[in-house]
């Protein structure tokens, strides 16, 4: 799936936005990743730092800055969710 990676609005995190409409399956993601916060709208997982996952597909990497690693993890999230 295609997505764009850029600094978030206030510049301290990295944001990933899908370029097509997405509706993530949190049930599947919860089986795959270590979950820190579990709500029907937002999931926060631990994978090389915290990642905020919105059910409409936007991701926010709070700590990880390496865009190559971010691309790999984002691919894994979209593939499994």
């Amino acid at each position, binding site marked *: 799936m295609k997505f764009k990676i850029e600094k*978030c609005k206030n*510049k*301290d995190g990295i944001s990933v936005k899908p370029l097509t409409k997405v509706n993530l399956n949190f049930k599947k993601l919860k089986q795959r990743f270590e979950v820190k916060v579990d*709500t029907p*709208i937002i999931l926060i997982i631990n994978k090389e730092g915290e990642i905020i996952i919105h059910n409409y597909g936007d991701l926010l990497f*709070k700590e990880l800055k390496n865009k190559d690693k971010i691309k790999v993890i984002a691919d894994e999230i979209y593939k499994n969710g």
Partner: protein
Amino acid sequence: MKSTKMAKGLLLISSGFDSPVAGYLMLKNDVDLIAVHFDNRPFTNDKPLTKSRKLIELLEQKFDKKIKFYQIDHGQNQIKFMKNCENRYRCLLCRRMMFKIAEQIAIKEKCNFLVTGENLAQVASQTIFNLTNADKAVNIKILRPLLCYDKLEIINLAKDISTHDISIEAAICCNAVPRNPVTRSKLHFIKKEESKINIKEMIQESLDKAKVF
């Protein structure tokens, strides 16, 4: 003679441009301030908190007075809204909850009113309908010194008073904001949503866990 001499306000500070400027304007008018910051972790990082503390320290230095600082763990409240309430109303429920908690701090600290950096229609949650329904959450008066400023005026004022360079520091903004927040909220619907959670318990838990500096 200024009539605000004995007034005391509770400033809701968020680390952006607006609330520190609102605080500055009140201090300039001889109002004493106490500050409260609602910490939205894990939906943000620790930067909004550290920036808020720096902004308050700057105002303390400018006016040579101590400003007590309350830190409230608001992330847990956000999780309850996400789990139980209508998504589009989440911003407004959050705002009303902040006001309810702030009102209790204001009573304890003998503050006469709340002060916010809210600005008419700057963001979806700040429409006149939403501000009106946010006001109805509390009995205490809410003062909004920046209500009709435009963003450029606020940023220029922030530059003049030196809060700009702190406000502009990198942070992660609150990710608990819904994609399409309601702009024409209805009070009966808000109350229905609030009835799904134990508001009183949430307020008490937030106050019990408050950190004061």
